[in-house]
């Protein structure tokens, strides 16, 4: 579903965020829980789903990571907006479930989106 090469940017991004959280913990008054949970939220909510969706397009890793972010925010927020209308609480569990569903959809869709060469 996802190759090692495609996984690498995610691992690098997660490492950068974790390192930034560590620096933040050392040099600011914010607690380590606050910093690391923030790093987790940025990775899970803002980076992961959009990156998985953009695996379906021939982009560079940097482009996938960067443009995946607004796509993540858009898709996760709209999905949560929709489940709220039918009465499902906007809890932590719902948010994580939606993130996972969108990420998995991104990976599953790869079966149907084949790559092609530059024109």
């Amino acid at each position: 579903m996802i190759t090692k090469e495609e996984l690498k940017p995610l691992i690098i991004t997660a490492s950068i965020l974790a390192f930034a959280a560590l620096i933040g913990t050392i040099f600011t008054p914010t607690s380590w829980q606050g910093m690391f949970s923030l790093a987790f939220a940025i990775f899970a909510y803002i980076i992961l789903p959009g990156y998985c969706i953009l695996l379906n397009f021939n982009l560079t890793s940097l482009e996938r990571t960067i443009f995946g972010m607004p796509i993540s925010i858009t898709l996760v927020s709209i999905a949560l907006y929709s489940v709220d209308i039918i009465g499902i609480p906007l809890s932590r569990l719902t948010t994580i479930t939606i993130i996972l569903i969108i990420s998995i959809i991104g990976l599953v869709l790869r079966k149907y989106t084949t790559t092609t060469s530059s024109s």
Partner: protein
Amino acid sequence: MENDKLFFISAVIFFAFAGLVLRNFPFSQGNLDKTMPPVITSYDVFANTEQTKWIYDSEQAYYYNQARTGGIEGVIGTHPTLYYIFIATFTKLTTLPVYQTAYLTVNILSILIILQLFAIFNKLFGAETALVALAIGTIPAHYWLFPMYVGFQYDYFTFATIPTILFLLVHRLEINITRTQRIMMYTLFGFLFIEQFLGHYVELIFYAPFFAALPLFFVWKKTITIKEYTTAIIVITLIMTPFLLYFLPLTIKDHLKGGIKAIQGQVSSGEGSKHVEYFPWPRFDFWLNIFSIIGIFTIMLNFKRNLQSSQRTTYLLFLVYLIIIGFSNVLFNISANRAERQLFQGYPFLVLLPALGITIITELTLTIIKKQNMTRIAITVILTLILLSTWNNTYNELNAIDDAALVDDNKWQSVVWIRDNTPKDSRVFFLSGFEHEFSMLSERVNLKGDLNRGYTMRNIKALCQKTYPEEYFGEWALREYGKYGEETYTKKRTGITTFEDIVEPFQNENEGYIFNGPDRGNQSVPLKFFDYVVLQYKGTGFDHCGGYFINQSLEIGHTLAWFNDAMAIIKINRSVQK
């Protein structure tokens, strides 16, 4: 330099985090655990924070907080709410308070817009130009950050999707993608447009015409087929329709009452086309202007080459369109409030011009002195210069804005006391001490008296003359309407465009006090309408008047519920006549 990946990536990471720190640190002082809003400058900031906290606490966005609707429970929300859902649910994944994340997410979105432009510039104009643009974008002069700290925060949420659409369009023009990929791309377009509509529809109104018209240009140039264009329109329409059918009747019914005219009013009338007084002028400084001229000159010199590239044409056309939108108040009489905000948001787009100028001058210089192999060193020096020349000034200016904020710890403690120690349906009168509706963070129905409003001075004047007023003038905080209290609330939806159980503010009350507009502060209510009164009794310039109110209140039977060095909270005994 493209091969020097480590330098390239390190610079991107450095400027992304530096930009984030610059935007957040002057206000939060780096303490993201603090349970007090870092930015306390305007109504919009408070309204955004209050709405987000309500969604975070109640875990739903369908109904408004009863404090926002004059005490009525179960009122269906009519305001574009997606932005608040994003922050509230994002915060659910952290241990941080909403008060901090409400501002932090705006900072993240701001950096995200710049990063997207960096990726676009990298693709279209080269790594050097992209890096210089990144540095100028992340470390701007302080006035470019005006919408961020003044409360136009939803602008960033919707604007963040504009470069995405532009990039995907550029990507499509660059590469032959499969049919499935096309459908998927246009599906994403549909969701990105819906994000704009549900977040803050102004950007959709401004930019959708461009994104609808531009592909037609490429149909004419035979870069894409008419069949593909039609497919795109159909897919986008299919994605958008359910959300439009759901939300448009709600918002037209209440928030945009007046239908299409009201929507037009959001951009084209009512607020005037003259420069908004409290907006700074969006402008480059002297050197950036010089480099921008060189950048424009470079674009003109390469005009034919630029036109041959569909991707560059797309970007440059958008840049021109953005500038036209930014000055549309001058050109087409569009509301200046809406138009000028687009220039602030468009800053990361505009920095292409000076970035191009700087890169060209650098390349030219290196060529003349025959040191082309020193490009990386030259770019490093330029990035450092940009950082050093702007950082301090911007940081200090933002710090000064924070120092001049409207609320101090004493005032915040009184708001927290009300929030944490009073019943949810309490009514609170903020007699003095609060401006720009900071009182809404008390999460209670509240009437607030600003010292900067003439009519509320009447309350203070009466007290200064040692008269204990029978009626108190004020303004309902947590407003939802253009005309305060005049409209109705909907509690039940029965169809796409049908609603039942429509109530007026306070109609479920049997106390006989009606405070229903139509203008600010032209009505008054007796003190016994409230459960609590919050006032600043020290440091106002009217201290003896506040003191008189406290003493007189205690004398006639009300009680002192809480106080600190500057603030006092009186619990109203409703059986007392006054």
